[in-house]
Structure formats: structure tokens, C-alpha cells
């Protein structure tokens, strides 16, 4: 049986790992390579690493860091942050990264999704949509540039468009729930699952393994991505990288499907 994926999502800011709340107040939580080593030991399903400076600073990508991460990473790795061209995507793949995540650039220039898919294969193209719930509506707006720019476009429209243009996976990232640790937006996850027929991952809100179980129970085979949950421990949010064991994950999935 194909299993739901439980995916730590790590944010890189000024060379270090950080965790944000509502896309703001980055808190330093450690060294990226060290975190990858710990997730190797825990045999994590896969890993997402997003450089949150790259797009905003319009910087050239830190290929040396990406190469170091890829060399260390013994699980599938998805890298995102600042990718604007097929050539950049191709170079990242050549460094040993399995998937590239594109957000702002793909929303502003949707044709880029097709160009990058043609270059590296659609299975490696991940589109990240950062979303906020609209007031008095069941729809969600897609934001770009680290939640600074509201495109005023519906996530469901953009998700379907991204699939049509060549996305291999979608990551739906809730700005409202970033760092909140109060549970996923299950209504959003369910509607996205129905809107597209490519793999999806939901990010934002996970505060416990129960939240992941609830997501899987609602959506079936899905990616449950989380930041805070896997870097903080306890009510005082002490920094401690953690991840469920293989047996815990099997038990969680078994319960969710029961």
C-alpha cells in the first residue's frame, strides 16, 4: 500500500534553520546539516527545505548549501526558495535533489511551470501555494513573496491551473496557521484533494501527531508536512528535533485508516 507521507519542512534564513509564526518572527532553531543528520537517523519519509530569504532578496541561490544538504540527505529532498528559471531548477536536480519547489515565480509566471517540467520532468516539480482564508468566504487567496503580496487569486483555481501546466505535486501552506500548532485546516485540505489529481501536501497547523492522523483520516493518502511539530518539544517550545519512529508512523496510519 502506498503510504501517506509525514514530511518535516525546514526553513533556512541567513544560513541557519528558523521557525516562523504567521510567516513572521523567525526563531533560530539550529543548523540545517545537523537537522538533516537527525532526520536521517529517524528515517523520515522525506524532507522539504525552503530558503525564505532567496526570493525576497532576489538573491542567487546558495548552491553550495544545497549541494551539502543533498549529499547529507538519505531521504528524498525537496528544495525551494528563489527558483526563477528552468536552468536553476536543472542545476538543483543535478546536485542530487529529488524535487524543486517553486512558489512566487510560478504564481507570477505560470508558463514557468511547463518550462521547468519540460526540463526536469513533472515528477520533480512541486508548486507551493501560500494561502490565507478570505473573510466571510470559504475561498482562500494565494499570497507571494513570503505572504507580503496578495494575488487575490483563489487557491483552488491556481491549484487546478498548476496541475494542468505540469506540476507533479502541490504543497498548500496556510499562512494563518503557520506556527500555530492548533491543527490543520481540514476543510481546505479536503477541497484541495478534490480539486486536483496529483499528490498534495498540507503545511501549517500541525501541533501533534493526532493532527496528522486527523489529516490522513480526512484525506487518505496525502503528505502531512510540518515545521514546528518536528523542531519544538513541550509547552515551552524548547528546540528539539523530533520525528515519530517507523512503528509509531505505522500505528498512526493504521488508526487513521481504521
Amino acid at each position: 500500500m502506498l503510504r501517506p507521507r509525514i514530511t518535516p519542512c525546514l526553513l533556512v534564513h541567513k544560513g541557519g534553520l528558523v521557525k516562523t509564526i504567521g510567516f513572521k518572527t523567525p526563531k533560530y532553531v539550529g543548523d540545517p546539516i545537523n537537522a538533516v543528520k537527525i532526520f536521517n537517523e529517524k528515517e523520515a519519509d522525506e524532507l522539504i527545505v525552503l530558503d525564505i530569504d532567496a526570493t525576497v532578496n532576489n538573491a542567487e541561490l546558495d548552491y553550495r548549501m544545497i549541494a551539502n544538504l543533498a549529499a547529507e540527505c538519505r531521504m528524498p529532498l525537496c528544495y525551494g526558495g528563489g527558483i526563477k528559471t528552468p536552468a536553476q531548477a536543472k542545476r538543483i536536480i543535478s546536485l542530487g535533489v529529488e524535487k524543486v519547489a517553486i512558489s512566487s515565480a510560478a504564481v507570477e509566471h505560470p508558463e514557468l511551470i511547463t518550462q521547468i517540467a519540460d526540463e526536469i520532468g513533472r515528477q520533480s516539480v512541486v508548486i507551493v501555494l501560500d494561502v490565507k482564508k478570505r473573510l466571510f468566504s470559504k475561498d482562500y487567496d494565494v499570497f507571494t513573496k513570503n505572504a507580503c503580496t496578495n494575488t487575490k487569486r483563489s487557491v483552488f483555481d491556481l491549484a487546478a491551473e498548476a496541475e494542468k501546466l505540469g506540476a507533479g505535486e502541490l504543497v498548500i501552506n496556510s499562512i494563518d496557521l503557520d506556527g500555530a500548532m492548533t491543527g490543520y485546516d481540514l476543510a481546505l485540505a479536503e477541497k484541495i484533494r478534490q480539486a486536483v489529481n496529483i499528490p498534495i501536501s498540507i503545511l501549517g497547523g500541525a501541533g501533534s501527531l493526532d493532527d496528522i492522523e486527523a489529516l490522513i483520516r480526512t484525506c487518505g493518502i496525502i503528505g502531512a508536512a510540518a515545521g514546528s511539530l518536528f523542531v519544538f518539544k513541550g509547552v515551552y517550545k524548547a528546540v528539539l528535533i523530533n520525528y515519530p519512529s517507523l512503528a509509531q508512523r505505522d500505528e498512526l496510519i493504521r488508526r487513521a485508516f481504521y
Partner: protein
Amino acid sequence: MIHVIDYGLGNVQAFLTLYKRLGFEATRAKTATDLTGATKIILPGVGAFDHAIELLNQSGMRPTLEALVVQDKVPVLGICVGMQILASASDEGHLPGLGWVPDKVYAFRANEQSASLPLPHMGWNDVQPKPGSLLFAGLESDARFYFLHSYYFECDEPSHVAAVAAYGFDFSCAVTAGNVYGVQFHPEKSHHFGTKLLKNFAEL
């Protein structure tokens, strides 16, 4: 010495790092001369079928590789698209494959049993090896591997099937024909399951 073919596709470094950790000698082969002395060959790959064949042709390694595999019977392990190009042909491309495992590769989207499922087939899936498969020694029960693909290998010759996985139906996720082996999943990214498989290949 294990030679990992570097023709611009796939995660060559991941194999080198993994074999170093296991204590096996492994090296990167970028030219035909680099292939001298190969006793095991790994053919990685990601992306599209035709692109992989074109890059392999451009690398200048193909004639030497064919001599090693077909005449000298050096064991070779194709990974992901590196497995698919072992076939004779693919729905995904127009170019002929290497034909070392003379079967065909098809699209999940065109198979009615998998057409309605999310594609690509992505994530960790259970793998059921065929009894006696050397590649899967010690992985007979509860083995799982990471997959990322939209096309699947179909063996007309049942003896070519080394393992199956289910995605709408049971497809051949590992194939074998003499000294030629292929796996659709990524053992280099499949934690201790993949490590065990790559160790088995090194010890064949």
C-alpha cells in the same frame, strides 16, 4: 569496484556516499575510460525516457557499457528511469531503449486500473519480492521503498519480474534478466531498506 554512471541524471553522489559508509569501493564514471575495471555498474536516472537515452548516447559511454553488460556479463542495476531504459521501448518516448530486459514501459494514466489515481506515484510503497530474489535477500517481508514516477515496467516474460508493488494494480517494480537488474524505486533514498538492497547488489 562499483562504477556509478554519471551521464547527467540522478543522484550519483548519494550512491557514492552510501557505499563509502558501507565500506565498498565505488567511483563515478563520466567517460568510457572511467569504466575500466568495473565489476558492478549502477545506472541511475530521473526525468524523461528519451532525455535519458540521449544523454547516455552523448556521454560516449554507451558502447563500452554495452560491451561490459552484454559480453562480459558485468552485473548492472538500473534505478528509476535508469531501470526504464533497460526496456526495449516506452510509452513516454520515441527512442528505443537498451533492450537488456526486453519488455516495455507504459503510462499509469493509460491503464484503466490506475488512471484515476493521483500521479505521479509518489511516496513510500510496500514491495513484494519474488521468492529467491538475491537483490531482496533479507527484505522478503515488510520492505518499503520510495517511489517517484508516472510510467511503469511491464514484463511479458514472467521470469523478469523480481518484485511487485501495488498502485491500482501490481506492477513490476523490480526486474531481472541474467546479470541485468532494475528497480523503479530509489534505494539510495529509502533508508535501511534501500541500504540493504544496495549492499545485496554489491555482494552479488
